[in-house]
């Protein structure tokens, strides 16, 4: 008699039931032997939990390693580590940003800068993975991204639109990790193109489409009757879901032509800017987690030519997003996150570039209950070392999870029988919440 065990193929969908039962807590897990090294996994995971202040997350990922000194942690003008870049004042007292971000400077009263991030990963793939999952990249398991955790632990959101959307071309994304594929984000390669294959064929009338689907159902009826397997039925559910989505009024959220030109111009006519606009539209309709990527920050050479160009897109897109959400009354419930895999070296190399620097870098949090106009943590006068508020990647992610009201110490068992929490042992920065 085979031991009942989680079998990858047949029970990926069933583990969700398992996860729900593990809400009951660590003590009820049957397998851990007293005294074994695994007896108290995740001892040290944060027990903090709050009523959610954020309903949605817009996660802006700067791919390639965004330089901290050239953006949100500028040092004195003329400092050798600054090259030609100068800091400018912002709408928030005592907060400065680089001169490359003039529009954002006017919105910093909404934003909390986390100046004291540190990562253990200095390579792109590993750093990207760590930032998205809080765990190190391994060859034997894939961890879920925050959007997938949110979908599994809370669900909610709009009934017909997916809960988790990814806008951008970045091929690396942990997706659903070890959760079933249904929690994979919907990937939108380009904001202008929208959802792939969402419209029936040109020239195919609604009537004919319905007739075809009805014929399909009739021709399939005896097969479905004969085969009650769950994986057969799951297809019926997906077709229903797909058709609901096709007909959904909310689908218009993906149609950027619904916005006035002026609005689209204000966000910036580039994939990032339009991606931010699309994110706002999706969040308006209840999509809970939207990621937008902006590359290619990896300026090993010509940093002071490439970075201003990148900052331009970021500046326009993010400042407009903040303004827009605020004016629509959505900023309070929408957590904006800006993240990257690592910073860039304070020392400028011979190619007038900056190299990878995970020792100290920055991220942003805004909205979703976060008090704006502040800087959490500090680096030294050349941006080399953290002097205050050291924040590891799991801590940064724990702060996001905390805003969403997710349980940080709840253990979920993967299909391979390994225990995980949302952010490993990350501790949220509770002081930044208003």
């Amino acid at each position, binding site marked *: 008699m085979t031991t009942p065990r989680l079998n990858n193929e047949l029970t990926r969908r069933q583990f969700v039931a398992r996860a729900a039962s593990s809400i009951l807590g660590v003590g009820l897990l049957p397998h851990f032997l007293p005294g074994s090294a695994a007896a108290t996994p995740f001892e040290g995971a944060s027990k903090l939990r709050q009523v959610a202040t954020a309903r949605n997350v817009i996660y802006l990922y700067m791919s390639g390693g965004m330089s901290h000194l050239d953006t949100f942690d500028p040092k004195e003008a003329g400092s050798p580590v600054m090259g030609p870049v100068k800091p400018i004042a912002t709408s928030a007292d005592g907060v400065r940003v680089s001169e490359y971000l003039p529009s954002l400077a006017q919105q910093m009263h909404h934003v909390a800068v986390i100046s004291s991030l540190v990562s253990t990963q200095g390579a792109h793939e590993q750093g990207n993975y760590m930032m998205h999952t809080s765990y190190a990249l391994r060859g034997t398991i894939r961890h879920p991204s925050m959007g997938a955790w949110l979908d599994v632990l809370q669900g909610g959101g709009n009934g017909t639109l997916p809960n988790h959307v990814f806008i951008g071309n970045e091929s690396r994304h942990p997706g659903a990790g070890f959760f079933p594929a249904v929690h994979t984000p919907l990937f939108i390669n380009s904001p202008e193109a929208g959802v792939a294959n969402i419209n029936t064929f040109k020239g195919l009338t609604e009537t004919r489409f319905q007739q075809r689907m009805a014929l399909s159902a009739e021709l399939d009826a005896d*097969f479905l009757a004969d085969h009650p397997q769950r*994986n057969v039925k799951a297809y019926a559910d*997906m077709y229903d879901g797909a058709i609901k989505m096709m007909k959904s009024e909310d689908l218009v959220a993906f149609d950027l032509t619904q916005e006035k030109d002026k609005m689209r111009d204000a966000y910036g006519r580039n994939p990032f800017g339009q991606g931010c606009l699309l994110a706002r539209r999706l969040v308006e309709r209840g999509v809970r987690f939207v990621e937008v990527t902006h590359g290619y920050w990896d300026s090993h050479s010509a940093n002071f030519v490439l970075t201003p160009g990148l900052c331009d897109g970021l500046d326009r897109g993010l400042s407009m997003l903040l303004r827009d959400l605020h004016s629509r009354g959505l900023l309070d419930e929408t957590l904006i996150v800006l993240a990257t895999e690592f910073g860039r070296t304070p020392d400028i190399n011979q190619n007038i570039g900056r190299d990878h620097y995970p020792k100290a870098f920055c991220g942003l949090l805004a909205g979703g209950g976060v008090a704006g106009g502040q800087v959490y943590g500090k680096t030294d006068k050349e941006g080399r070392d953290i002097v205050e508020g050291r924040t590891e990647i799991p801590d940064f992610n724990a702060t996001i999870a905390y805003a969403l009201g997710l349980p940080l110490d709840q253990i979920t068992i993967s299909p391979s029988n390994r225990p995980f929490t949302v952010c490993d042992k990350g501790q949220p920065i509770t002081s930044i919440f208003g």
Partner: protein
Amino acid sequence: MNKFPLTLLLSLCAVSFIHAAPSRTVDTMAVARELDALLSADWQKNNVQPNPPATDEVFVRRVYLDIAGRIPTYREAQEFLGAPGQDKRAELIDKLLASDDYEMRFFNYWADVLRLQSFGAIGTVAGAAYTEYIRNSLHSNKPYDQFVRELISAKGRPWENPAIGYYMRDNRMPLDNFANTARIFLGTRIECAQCHDHPFDKWTQMQFYQMTAFTYGNDVKAIENPAIMQPRELLKAERKDLTAHMEEARKASIAAGEQPKSDYRWIVDYFGFVGQAVADIQYLAMGGTGIVYDDKRKLELPHDYKYPDAQPKDVVEAKTMLGQSAERAPGERSTEAYARWMTSPENPRFTTVIANRLWKLAFGLAVIEPLDEMSDANTPVNPELMKRLENLVKESGYDMKACLRVIFNTRAYQAAATKQEIVPGMPYHFPGPILRRMTAEQMWDSFTTLINAAPYATPKITTENLHNRVVKGAKLIDALDLITPEEAYQGAKVAAESYRAAAEMAAQGRLKIEEAKKAGDLQAVETITKQVAQVQGGGRRALGRAVYLPAVQRLAEIKEGRPAPPSPFSDAPVHVTEADLLADTVADPTMPAQQLKVNGYDKSELTPEQEQAEAAREEHAIVDAANYFNVPEARQKGFIAICRNQRIYWSRAADMISPAFRGSYLRIFGQSDRELIENSSPDASVPQALTLMNSDLLKTVMSTDTQLMLAIKRNPDSEAQLDATYLTLLSRKPTEHERAVWHKAQASGLDSIEDLIYALINTRRFIFVE
């Protein structure tokens, strides 16, 4: 078919890969009957009713999918269903096992198990070589134990021993690599024990490390030819020398009461750029990265090892965790001893796992589930069956085709699929295969079958691309052996000027952009930014031309039997302008070098007669299809072109990059991202439904000159066309009820065959395998 002549110099066996070691003869039918008898006995004991026999229609569709990885064509289905004879099923099984389709279907399977990626951590050259190697191994029906031994004991450069891909895939993660080995070949999941004693099973962390120690001598190593390693010494020496000179001159000036003339900064500056070029000589040789083995590499326990049997950081000696010990013969690497131990018929898990894999490929479930997570508690439902299967594997000499032949010929396999849900933990007695959804590759390959009017083998363009990547890697590295460190250093100095020019352009560019911004000229800002970005690769491109190109030129001359050309590197000062940089747009810095034809490196050229014969063969197959589909003579030339196009744009999954890119149909259908072992998903998803209802894929299937539409058009009247539609999509004729349903639909407005096709493709019965 001698497809890839260059690749393999096996360190273990000099067995030609064209003819695999002959399998010991298996009496297929006799063993199949034995398996059926063992199943029968088990059914009796457990009151299980066998499923009724599958009809020929169900059988033909299923066996094509299981062996060839695709549905049969209209013609193939017709031929099988219309053929007389008792033995037609056995003959079909033989035919499919001998076909090119077999190699592709099973490549998809092993690519999932081995997490084969064409690009990424594995490296593009090693990835291409590994892909070729797996295809070749399946093509020649290499015995499974030999295949595993080659993987586990591999070392060398990608073109010398492409099996190194097994280790390159887990570049810098030797512990994870072992966890994967244990899972794939020993059916044992031990990854938990990497960090602590396994919480559910008997394995300890010490055992994990002891097993990893067998392969820890393997290291991923970049190329370290003298031409790569020594220029940096030359640079250091030259810089030291020059600095000393400058220091003396400076002292002399001061002593003479003069203002010291020079400033040292230019030395730092100059050697900075030369240093980058020197470092990049190795960077451009990354394709040659391979596996070296060094006994001196010792695995240590981690710093937080907490068990009483050893201290943190203690050196770990290799020791097997199950079965017998693995003794090293004198002169042998530990990976060789390990490979032998692992693939021994005495190894308690090795044969069980492959027996389970082969059984599962046919039945959808293994005799012991999960097959890669065996534990002492996990016993087979039918131990006699398990044992007989293991013995079959051993008796056949680990010949996978021979074993599959037996399994497919059992009555149990040829029964109808089980209709009930199989709940995990519920014992399954194999009254028949279980119902499965097609894998992503089977779905995709079935669509390409519906599209491609003429059957085909792997298009040349794919094999050439793969092979070229490997060959180019070899060419560059071998060429480096022919230039001296001094010549390489001189080349680096020449290239350094391009590095400098690119940096200067960045500095100037920044100022120009500031001006343009002040003037409000956004177009100029964009143009200048783009230009600066583009030229940043200029240094490496110059290096490719300054070092690699002359090296390969030298190699080409020598391989032609001519003397090596003299050093091409002159001392003349080099000046690189912005215009020079902007004009240099080659994508890959080593491209000019790679493109030089070198005797003995490039794909073996066929003689013009052979080329013609190839082309004629291909054309003949297409013309045959044209005649079958009654394509008029006048149209045949165009038809040939269409078929050639179809092969390129609608090629089989095994011929595409691995994995296919995110967003492609294959990935939407659930193809594994090959990040983890067997990570494909058979689950439904909204994007899949949207694809099947709305995508271009469907439009293409229904366009003219596809196999599907030609098969339908071949039939004059609408009833025959209805039959043809069903035969092509489902390998059977419609039932009376289905006929009636279609007539009713036609009467109510669905008057074109496209309506029926659309409806059928969107049924479950199309994508599930009965």
